[in-house]
């Protein structure tokens, strides 16, 4: 049987769901970053798949830029995380409520 675009889309949505679950479940900030990575990759797959099936390179270009963004995001994210760790000694999500409403 032939792999159609919907297979890829279903796959990417499943991965997206897993990433989302991860984001929402995690209290530890680092684990949360992992989950965001998963989210980004899920979209990448979808982009790549669509660009492949409709024969248009812009999909892949987009994926490139996403990877670039992801990389820089991780760099900054971890840096902030370290600063936060220095201050509080813990990286648990619930401590971060100084911006309370």
């Amino acid at each position, binding site marked *: 049987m032939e792999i159609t675009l919907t297979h890829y889309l279903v796959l990417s949505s499943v991965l997206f769901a897993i990433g989302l679950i991860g*984001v*929402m479940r995690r*209290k530890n900030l680092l684990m949360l970053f992992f989950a965001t990575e998963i989210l980004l990759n899920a979209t990448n797959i979808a982009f790549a798949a669509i660009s492949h099936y409709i024969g248009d390179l812009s999909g892949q270009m987009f994926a490139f830029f996403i990877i670039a963004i992801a990389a820089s995001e991780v760099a900054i994210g971890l840096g902030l995380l370290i600063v936060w760790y220095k201050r509080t000694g813990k990286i648990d*999500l*619930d401590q971060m*409520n100084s911006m*309370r*409403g």
Partner: protein
Amino acid sequence: MELYLYIALFAPLVGSLFSALFGASAKTSLTGYVASGLLFTSFISSVLLLNYVLGGHTVHVEMMTWMATGNLYIPFGFVVDQVSVVMMMVVTIVSTVVHVYSIGYMDHDKGFNRFFSWLSAFVFSMMVLVMSDNFAGLFIGWEGVGLCSWGLIGFWYHKESATWAANEAFIMNRIADLGMLIGIFMLYWNVGSLQYDVVFAEIGNLPVVITTWIGIFLFIGAMGKSAQFPLHTWLADAMEGPTPVSALIHAATMVTAGVYLVVRANPIYDLIPNVGIFIASLGAFVALFAASMALVNRDMKRIIAYSTLSQLGYMFVAAGLGAYWVALFHLMAHAFFKALLFLGAGNVMHAMHDELDPFKMGGLRKVMKGTFVMMTLASVALAGIYPFAGFFSKDLILEVGFVEHHYVIYTVLLLTAGLTAFYSFRLVALIFHGEERYKLFGIHPHEAYKFMLVAMSPLLVLAIIAGSFKMTYFQLVMNLLPATQYHVHNQTIFWIMTIGTQLFVIGAILFAYKKYSNWNSVPDGTSKMEKSFGYKLLWNQYYIPKFYEEVFSRPYLELSKVAWKEIDLKIVDATVDMIANAIYKTGENTRDIQNGNLSTMLRWMVFGLVVLLALAVAFTVGYNAVGA
């Protein structure tokens, strides 16, 4: 002549305001004299007006406009014509006597000045009621009289029962006044004005159903003021007030205002005979009803009050059957001897240190000679024995009943005449004859002041000779009221009837004398008679006051408490607060969206995302469906 009209009208008001100035301060007998003097001047001017009116002309004056909006024009207008001059005479004579009497009666009372201001104010509102030339002016007097009776019944305001009785009287009168008000509204919207002359000219060409309704509503007003059947309980309780008040208000003037209204509005009632029949039958019923209650009562003033109620019934019978001049004549005669009876009772009450139960007195004729003579003659007049006034006015009503072929009413009235004779002489016998039972209670009575007896003497004279005025009175009133002569045609029946009633009444008197003149024991509710159902029924006034209490006043109070506690606080107020709280609560719950907890915020974010996506999908699908 206008000057005398204004003097007659405003003299009592001046007297009232003068004594009101001293209202708070201690007793100054000056107020008594000034008030009585002014009343006397009002009486003199009424006499002058009387012979002016006897000369065949009337006085009609319009002082100033009262209310004038749209097509409504109500002036302060006063008219002195035949009917009102008779009423003025009655009012001024009785009130002058009562004023002079109460100088003596109230001399130990702290509120002496206040009493006179209320009493004169009462006479003023009665004069306004009687002399006004339109229904609105009548209504002013109507309510003014109600106010003064409230003030006077509740005069000794430290007594709980007095204030309760005052409020009951005022509220019950108010219920009747509502009926009258509606009657006045109907009159205005159908006739366009409230002036007597315009109304009585115009009333003819109104549809009968409207005239009937007007007649009924006006009669409801009369019923309340003259304490007819459903609204009669306040009269008995009104005896809480000082005795001169009962004499003036609850014997001679206020209670007769209802009769005056029916007599004054005779053109209306002529057009609606069936309402007349209803009034007559109600009057007959009340006559019998009140007389029965008086038989067993053990309070001197209440017995006299019931006898007034019964005589009012007589008057309404006459008025109902169209014999307006007979009703007015009985009103006049009755006012004299009933006021005399009350004042006599006042003397006895004073002598007995405010003791009211006749069974606790006895043998007072030796000590209170004057009062004994007066009360006996007044009772004789009340019973309607030949030479006295009662015979000419009361028996005339019996004749009217007979001539108009209302034999049921005639027999009822005849029976009531007997009962009246019985209970009035039961009272006289118990108080003045028999064994001095008051000695058991260590009371040593003394006769009233000399000038009080002198003050009462004019009433005594009038009670005796009032009958003789009948012819001159008839000529006077003939040109205003329908002057139908009531004569039983064949002489034999006439003589049988009159002699029969006389014998019946005398028999009742002798029976009462025999039964009560040598009474020696003070019944304490143990005797067989007092346990009988009939006695208990009459004693509790047919359980009507209790019925009113249970059916009207207590449920009204409970309903008001429910209205306040439940409806106002719990329902109406709660809904308002509930709306406010609802807004407050939503604010409260949504507050934790910003509570800084990142994971909840993430969840809300994803929730928002999902909702938006759902909307996007829904619209696109919807859009396509619509588009397709």
